[in-house]
C-alpha cells in the first residue's frame, strides 16, 4: 500500500492541536505508522477559522468538520476512501477552468512559472511549453488573427488604466509607417507593490515571448523593456533571457526560420516615479528628461521617436502567451463582467501572511484578506485597504465583500492600480496615511505642469495643518477645490490621481477627519501633535513597567508610588500606553 501523508493545519498553536493529537494517537494505537504519517503544518495554502486536513497522494482537503467527525475521517484514511461532505471546494463559478487551483482560491496565469522554474534556464522554460505560443502565432496565425484573439479574450491593461490591450494593438497596427516600436513598462514604483519584479525575476522568458508575439501582431522589428535600475537582479535575468533566446533563434533575425525578425533591448530607468507614465517613459528611452507630453497625439500615432508605438505593463505581457496558446475563449471564461482573467496582488500591511497572490477577477477583499492572507495581524479589527497606491483610494470595511474588478473599484472611488494592496487595521490613522501618500506624490512630481507641482504641495500643506491640530473646517472645501483643479488640469495621470487617496478617505472616513479638525484629536495616536499621554495617579500602582519601556526616559517616580510623565520630553510614541496593564495611562 502507498504511504499516506496527512497534513494538519490548526488555527490554534499547533502543539496543542486536538486534531493532530487525535490522529497521531489513533495511528499509534492501531500501529499504522508504516502506512500513515501525520504532520503538523504551519501553513497549508489557505486559512480558515477551523482546522484543515490535507491528505496526500490523493490530495484531498477536508474542512469544516467537528471533533466527533474525526473518527470517521480517520477510518476513511485507513480504508483509502473519501468522505464527500467535508471536502473543501471553492466557488467554481468564478473560474470554471480545470487548471484552477481548487485548494487555495488562487489561479495562476501570470505567475504560472514563478517559483517553480529556474529563471536562468531557457531549456527549462521550453520544457514547460515555453515559446510554443510564439511558434503557434508565427506559423499558424496571421497578425490580424492574433489581435482578434487578444481582443476577444477581454484582456485589459494591468498597469492600472484598464484599456483594452487588443484595441491598443489594433490601433497601432492600423497606423501607416514601416517602423513601429513595442515597449514593456517595467518601471514599477508604487509603494508596497512588487508584482512586476516577481515576474521579471521569476520568469523573464514569458515577457520576451509575449513581446515577440505582440511585435509579430503589430508589425514591429524592435522593442524595448524599460526596467528600473533598482531591480538589478531583474536586469541580470532579463539580459540572460534575451541573449539565450537569441542563441536559440527565438529572438533576432528570422525567428524559428520564418520571415519574422525582432530585436529586444533593455533600457534602465533612473528611479523617477513619473517615468512609469507612458509618454514620460518614451521620452526617457529617447534619452531626454522624463517629462510627460500632452495627448493627443497618442503613442499609437506618434510615440517613441515620433513613430507609432505601443506599451504594455509586465503583467499584461505575461498574459499573452497563455491566451495565444489556449485561445480567447479559455481566458474570457475566467473573471467577471468586463474584467477577464486574473490579477496579481502584492498584499502588505497588517495581515498575518503577507505575500504575492494571483486571484481571478471578481474575488472579494474578504477572501483575499481572510482566506488567503490569514486575516489581520494580532486579531485586530479590519479598517480599510488601500488599492492602487498613491493614485488609488481606500476601501472601507463596508465594501469588504465587494468584488475586485475594474468597474466595481471605479464605482467606489478607487482604482485597480498596478496591484499593491495595503491592509490597515484600527491603529492606522487615515489622515496620516494620506499625508504619507501626498508626500510621495509631491516628491515624485516632475514639475512640468502647475496643477500637479503647486496643487500637490498645497494639498500636503493643508493635510499637515490638520495633523498638527491647526485645521479649520474651511480647509475641507479648499482641499476639494484644489483636488478638482488637479484632476481636471494636470498633464498626466500622476497629477490627475494625486488627490484620489485624500478624496476617498475624506468621503469614507469623514468622521475621523472632522475629529482631527474640530476636536483636535487623533483616535489612533498616530498624529503625535494631537496626542498627550497622562498617568492617572489613582490607578497607577508604581510597577515601573512604563518607565522601563520609555525610550526617552521621561517617566519618573518611586517604586510602588504613582509615576509621572514629563510632557516636555515625551515623544508620544505610545510605548507606555501599550505597556501599562492597569489602564492607568490615558491618551487624550
Amino acid at each position, binding site marked *: 500500500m502507498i504511504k499516506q*501523508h496527512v*497534513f494538519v*493545519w490548526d488555527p490554534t498553536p499547533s502543539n496543542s492541536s486536538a486534531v493532530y493529537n487525535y490522529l497521531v494517537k489513533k495511528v499509534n494505537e492501531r500501529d499504522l505508522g508504516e502506512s500513515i*504519517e501525520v*504532520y503538523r*503544518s*504551519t*501553513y*497549508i*495554502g489557505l486559512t480558515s477559522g477551523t482546522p484543515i486536513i*490535507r491528505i*496526500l*497522494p490523493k490530495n484531498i482537503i477536508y474542512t469544516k468538520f467537528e471533533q466527533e467527525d474525526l473518527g470517521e475521517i480517520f477510518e476513511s484514511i485507513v480504508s483509502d476512501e473519501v468522505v464527500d461532505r467535508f471536502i473543501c471546494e471553492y466557488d467554481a463559478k468564478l473560474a470554471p477552468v480545470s*487548471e*484552477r487551483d481548487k*485548494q*487555495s482560491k*488562487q*489561479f*495562476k*496565469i501570470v*505567475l*504560472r*512559472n*514563478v*517559483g*517553480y522554474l*529556474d*529563471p536562468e534556464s531557457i*531549456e527549462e522554460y*521550453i*520544457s*514547460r*511549453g*515555453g*515559446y*510554443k505560443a510564439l*511558434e503557434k502565432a508565427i*506559423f499558424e496565425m496571421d497578425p490580424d488573427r492574433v489581435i482578434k484573439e487578444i481582443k476577444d479574450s477581454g484582456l485589459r491593461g494591468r498597469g492600472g488604466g484598464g484599456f483594452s490591450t487588443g484595441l491598443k494593438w489594433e490601433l497601432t497596427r492600423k497606423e501607416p509607417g514601416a517602423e513601429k516600436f513595442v515597449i514593456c513598462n517595467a518601471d514599477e514604483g508604487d509603494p508596497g507593490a*512588487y508584482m512586476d*519584479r*516577481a*515576474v521579471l*525575476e*521569476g*520568469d523573464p522568458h514569458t515577457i520576451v515571448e509575449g513581446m515577440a508575439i505582440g511585435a509579430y501582431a503589430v508589425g514591429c522589428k524592435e522593442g524595448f523593456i524599460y526596467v528600473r535600475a533598482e531591480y538589478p*537582479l531583474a536586469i541580470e535575468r532579463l539580459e540572460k533571457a534575451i541573449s539565450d533566446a537569441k542563441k*536559440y*533563434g527565438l529572438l533576432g533575425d528570422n525567428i*524559428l*526560420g520564418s520571415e519574422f525578425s525582432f530585436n529586444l533591448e533593455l533600457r534602465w530607468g533612473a528611479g523617477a516615479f513619473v517615468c512609469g507614465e507612458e509618454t514620460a517613459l518614451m521620452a526617457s528611452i529617447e534619452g531626454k528628461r522624463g517629462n510627460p507630453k500632452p495627448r493627443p497625439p497618442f503613442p499609437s500615432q506618434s510615440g517613441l521617436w515620433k513613430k507609432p508605438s505601443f506599451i504594455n505593463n509586465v503583467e499584461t505581457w505575461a498574459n499573452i502567451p*497563455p491566451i495565444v*496558446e489556449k485561445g480567447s475563449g479559455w481566458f474570457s471564461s475566467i473573471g467577471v463582467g468586463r474584467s477577464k482573467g486574473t490579477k496579481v496582488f502584492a498584499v502588505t500591511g497588517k495581515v498575518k*501572511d*503577507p*505575500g*504575492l*497572490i*494571483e486571484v481571478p477577477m471578481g474575488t472579494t477583499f474578504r477572501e483575499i484578506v481572510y482566506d488567503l492572507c*490569514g486575516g489581520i495581524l494580532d486579531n485586530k479589527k479590519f479598517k480599510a485597504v488601500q488599492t492602487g497606491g498613491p493614485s488609488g483610494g481606500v476601501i472601507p470595511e463596508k465594501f469588504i465583500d465587494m468584488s475586485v474588478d475594474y468597474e466595481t473599484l471605479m464605482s467606489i472611488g478607487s482604482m485597480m492600480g498596478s496591484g499593491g494592496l495595503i491592509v490597515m487595521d484600527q491603529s492606522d490613522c487615515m489622515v496620516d496615511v494620506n499625508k504619507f501618500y501626498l508626500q510621495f506624490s509631491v516628491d515624485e512630481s516632475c514639475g512640468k505642469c502647475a496643477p500637479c507641482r503647486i496643487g500637490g504641495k498645497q494639498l500636503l500643506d493643508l493635510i499637515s495643518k490638520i495633523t498638527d491640530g491647526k485645521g479649520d473646517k474651511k480647509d475641507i472645501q479648499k482641499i476639494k477645490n484644489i483636488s478638482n483643479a488637479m484632476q481636471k488640469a494636470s498633464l498626466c495621470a500622476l497629477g490627475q490621481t494625486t488627490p484620489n487617496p485624500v478624496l476617498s478617505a475624506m468621503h469614507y472616513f469623514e468622521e475621523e477627519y472632522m475629529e482631527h479638525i474640530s476636536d483636535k484629536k487623533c483616535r489612533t495616536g498616530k498624529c503625535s501633535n494631537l496626542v498627550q499621554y497622562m498617568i492617572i495617579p489613582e490607578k497607577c500602582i508604581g510597577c515601573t513597567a512604563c518607565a522601563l519601556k520609555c525610550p526617552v526616559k521621561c517617566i519618573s517616580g518611586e517604586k510602588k508610588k504613582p509615576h509621572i510623565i514629563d510632557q516636555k520630553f515625551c515623544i508620544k510614541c505610545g510605548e507606555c500606553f501599550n505597556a501599562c496593564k492597569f489602564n492607568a495611562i490615558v491618551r487624550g
Partner: protein
Amino acid sequence: MEKMKKGDLAEFKKNYKSPYKGEIIISMGTCGIAAGGDAVYKLFESEMKEKGLENVKLKKTGCLGMCFCEPNLIVKLDGMPDILYGNVDERLARLIMNEHLTKKRIINFNTIFMPTDDIGRKIFKD
C-alpha cells in the same frame, strides 16, 4: 547552439529529461536573497557535494509569493509529496539534508505545505 526551426520546440520538449531523482528549489528573488536565501543556497551547494547527494538537483527560482516565511524552499523527491519548508535557517537546512534527503523522512517541524499546484505545467500540457 544551433538556431531552432519550426517544430524544434516540441522535439526539444519531448527529449528533455532531467537526469536527477529530485529537486530542491530555493526561492531566490530579491526578496528571498535579502531574507537569507543566498546563504541557504551556498550551504546546500557545499554540503550536498560532501554528502554525495548529487542525484538531487539544486535549483534557484523566483519569488513564490510567500513573503511571510522567507527564505523558503521546496523539496521534490520521487515517490514523495512536494514539501515546502519556510523560515529555513542553517539548522533546518541541515535537518532537511540529513532527514528528508537521506532518510526520506519529512520533518515534522516548520512544515509549510506546498501552497498551490504547479499550474504552469497544466496550462501548457499536451
